């Protein structure tokens, strides 16, 4: 499947600061999904983006799909300790594919 690259690999922020993670691909993505995995937990679906330039919000979380559908971002406003975890982007590899390919994730630590 396609490779999605996530940056940064790690991010440490003070509680109340904002946080952004980026997901990039060298080829056009058909869609992008975001998952959150708490320490010791399992991935939990957050959202799926399909349309070029799409922006979706969930409370303090803002998800964006690039105009060229080659990148996506997740922005958290005013982080809280409950935001701690690893955020993964993932994409279905293409037409007829059942494979969801995950990035390596961005591990977020929040300092209270």
């Amino acid at each position, binding site marked *: 499947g396609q490779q999605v690259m996530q940056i940064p690999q790690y991010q440490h922020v003070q509680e109340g600061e904002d946080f952004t993670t980026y997901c990039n691909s060298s080829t056009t993505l058909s869609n992008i999904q975001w998952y959150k995995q708490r320490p010791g937990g399992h991935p939990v679906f957050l959202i799926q983006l399909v349309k070029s330039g799409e922006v979706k919000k969930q409370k303090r979380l803002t998800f964006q799909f690039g105009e060229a559908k080659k990148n996506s971002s997740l922005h958290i406003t005013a982080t809280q300790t409950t935001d701690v975890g690893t955020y*993964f982007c993932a994409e279905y590899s293409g037409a007829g594919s*059942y494979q*969801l390919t*995950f990035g*390596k994730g961005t591990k977020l630590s929040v300092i209270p």
Partner: protein
Amino acid sequence: GAGVSQSPRYKVAKRGQDVALRCDPISGHVSLFWYQQALGQGPEFLTYFQNEAQLDKSGLPSDRFFAERPEGSVSTLKIQRTQQEDSAVYLCASSSRQGPWAYEQYFGPGTRLTVT
């Protein structure tokens, strides 16, 4: 209803032993996925079932790995002659949607396999 459940939660196997990992998906979910997650990495796709049909097994790393879902509900991932490189968390996920782009997937807690 309950979420996806997996058993056992932890499994220690000696190299060369066979193991069987069980997944109970959310009731009624037609799609079932298996993933392998190494420490510090994202989940890696292993195989996909639509009801009882295994439609994609391209992610299985070797012929020592075998998965089945005979009645379209519970699934078992079997690893024969385990090797140390098989040590990982094995995640099962299910979805109410079918086919490519199965939309959101609901993950189980995983089985942590350690091969000694």
